[in-house]
C-alpha cells in the first residue's frame, strides 16, 4: 500500500469526525472561552498570556539550570562513568580531536577548567562533554549529535521553529555536502564507548550548510524537515559580531524580522508579527548587538539576580535571505540572550532597546 491508496481510504473515517472537522475553526477550539463570555480576541489573548507565563518560567528554569550546571559541573565529565561527547570516537574507533584539535587526553580537563572562562579575549565556552548518564535532564532538553568530535546541539527553546523548513524551499540554496547519518544511538544508558561519531539523541541526515562554517553549524534532515544544529561549545566570543557576523553573516542578509511580545512558546507557536526591516531602529539594533560584549549569565545573575529574566521581553526571529532563522531574546533592560548559548548574553544600550520597542509599539 502506498500513500495515494491511504489517501483514498481516508474516506472510511467516521462521518461524525468528518462533520466535526468540517465546521472546526478557531472559535470552536476556544469553546471554553466562548462559554465564559469572552470574545474571540480576548480568548486568544488569554491563551497567549498563559503561554507567555509558562514559557517565561521555562526560560527562567533554563537560565537557572545553566547556571547550576556550570556551577556544579553537570556539563562536565572528568573521569566518571557514562558516556561523554568529548570522548567521541570515529568510525574506526580512533579518538577524535575536539573542535580545537586537541586529543582526548587534553580534553579530560579538571572540572574547574570546564567552566566558561572570561578573559580579555572574551568568553570561552569549553568543549562540552555531556554525560547523559550523570544527568538525564541534559538529554531531555537538548537534541544533539556528534560530528568530528564536536557536539552539535539543537536549541531547545526554538526547536520547533527551527525544524519547520520544507526541504523544497531551501534544498538547492542551503544544503551542501551530505556528511553522514545521525544514528540517534545515545540515551541515558549508553556506555562511554557508545559516544561515537554520528551518535546522538536524534536521527537524520547531516549536511553542511552553504555559506556557513561546518565547525559551527550543520543541518540535519529529519524526515522532510531541516533543523539547524550549532556547535555552541569549544569557542570564544568577545563581541556580538563574533556570533552574528562572523558565523551567521547577519548584517545586510536578512529579509524579515518577526517579533512576539508575549505568548511565544515552542509548544503552541503563535503567529509572530512582522517588523519593518528597513526601519533605522532595526539596523541600529543589529549594530548595537554586534558591538556589545559577551558576558556570562552567571555574572549577570550574581549582579542583579534572576529578576532580569522577569522583565517584559520580545522574542525576535530573524529570517535570513537563505532561509536560516534564529532567535534573539530582547529584555527591557537591554540584555540580549541568544538561544544558541544558554550561559552567555550581551547588553545593548537602553536607548537602542527603547527605539526598537517604540517601533514595535507603532505597528
Amino acid at each position, binding site marked *: 500500500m502506498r500513500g495515494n491508496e491511504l489517501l483514498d481510504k481516508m*474516506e472510511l473515517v467516521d462521518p461524525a469526525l468528518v462533520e466535526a*472537522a468540517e465546521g472546526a475553526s478557531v472559535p470552536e477550539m476556544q469553546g471554553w472561552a466562548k462559554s465564559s463570555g469572552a470574545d474571540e480576541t480576548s480568548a486568544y489573548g488569554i491563551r497567549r498570556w498563559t503561554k507567555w507565563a509558562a514559557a517565561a518560567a521555562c526560560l527562567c528554569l533554563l537560565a537557572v539550570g545553566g547556571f547550576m550546571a556550570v556551577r556544579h559541573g553537570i556539563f562536565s565529565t572528568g573521569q566518571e562513568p557514562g558516556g561523554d561527547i568529548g570522548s567521541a570516537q570515529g568510525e574506526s574507533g580512533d579518538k577524535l580531536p575536539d573542535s580545537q584539535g586537541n586529543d582526548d587526553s587534553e580534553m579530560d580537563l579538571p572540572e574547574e577548567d570546564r567552566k566558561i572562562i572570561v578573559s580579555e579575549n572574551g568568553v570561552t565556552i569549553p568543549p562540552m562533554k555531556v554525560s547523559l548518564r550523570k544527568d538525564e535532564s541534559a538529554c531531555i532538553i537538548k537534541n544533539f549529535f556528534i560530528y568530528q568530535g564536536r557536539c552539535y546541539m539543537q536549541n531547545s527553546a526554538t526547536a520547533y521553529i527551527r525544524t519547520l523548513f520544507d526541504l523544497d524551499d531551501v534544498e538547492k540554496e542551503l544544503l551542501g555536502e551530505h556528511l553522514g547519518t545521525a544514528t540517534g544511538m545515545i540515551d541515558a544508558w549508553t556506555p562511554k564507548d557508545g559516544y561515537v561519531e554520528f551518535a546522538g539523541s536524534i536521527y537524520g541526515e547531516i549536511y553542511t550548510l552553504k555559506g556557513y562554517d561546518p565547525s559551527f553549524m550543520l543541518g540535519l534532515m529529519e524526515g522532510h524537515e531541516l533543523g539547524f544544529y550549532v556547535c555552541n561549545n569549544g569557542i570564544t566570543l568577545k563581541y556580538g559580531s563574533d556570533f552574528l557576523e562572523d558565523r551567521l553573516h547577519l548584517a545586510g542578509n536578512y529579509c524579515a524580522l518577526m517579533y512576539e511580545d508575549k505568548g511565544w512558546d515552542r509548544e503552541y507557536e503563535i503567529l509572530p508579527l512582522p517588523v519593518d526591516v528597513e526601519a533605522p531602529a532595526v539596523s541600529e539594533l543589529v549594530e548595537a548587538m554586534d558591538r556589545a560584549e559577551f558576558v556570562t549569565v552567571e555574572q549577570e545573575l550574581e549582579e542583579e539576580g534572576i529578576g532580569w529574566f522577569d522583565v517584559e521581553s520580545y522574542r525576535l526571529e530573524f529570517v535570513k535571505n537563505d532561509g536560516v532563522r534564529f532567535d534573539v531574546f530582547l529584555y527591557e533592560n537591554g540584555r540580549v540572550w541568544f538561544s544558541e548559548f544558554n550561559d552567555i548574553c550581551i547588553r545593548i544600550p537602553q536607548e537602542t532597546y527603547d527605539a526598537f520597542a517604540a517601533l514595535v509599539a507603532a505597528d
Partner: protein
Amino acid sequence: MEDGRIVELFWERDEAAIKQTAEKYGGRLRALSLGIVRDVQTVEECENDTYAQAWDLIPPNEPKAYLYAFLARIIRHISLNRCRDRARLKRSAHVCELSAELDQCIASPDDCACRVDDLALAEALNGFLRSLDEEKRNIFLRRYWYLDAVADIAARFGVSESKVKTTLFRSRNQLRMYLEKEGYHL
C-alpha cells in the same frame, strides 16, 4: 430543509431531493472539490456526478444523521479520481504531495494492494483519530480528508503554518506507530 427530510425525498424518488441537496450543501461540496481538482469546470462535473451517485446510493443507504459527510465522501472520491485521470497526462502536484505525506504513515510502502480489509482499516483509522485531541484530529482531517492546503488550515484554526506542519508531521508518525502497534500491516 432538514437532512432527514431530504433523505426521505431520496427514498421517495422525488427529484426535489437533488435540488434541496444542492441548495443546502452545493457550496460546501464545490469548495471541497475545488480544493482537490483546482478547476471550476471539473468541479461542476464532480458535483453533478455526486448528486447522481447519491441518487443511486439512497436508498439503500439512509444517511439522515450524516448527509453532508455522506455526500462529501462521494465528491471527494470522484474528485480524487478526476485528478488521477488528469495525472495520466500531467501529474497533480497537490495529490502527489498529500500521497507522499501519507507514505510516512505506512511502515513499508509498496505497490501491493492493501492487505487490510476496509472494515479493519476503518476501525484502525477511527481508533487512531479518536486517540488524538480535538485540535490535532481536526487538523489531520482537514489536511487528509478535505485535502486543504496548509495555509488554509492555518488560517482556519488561527495558528501559524509551521504549527500546522508540526502537528501533521507528528500525527503522521503517530499514525504509523499506532498501525504498527495495533498490528495493521498495510
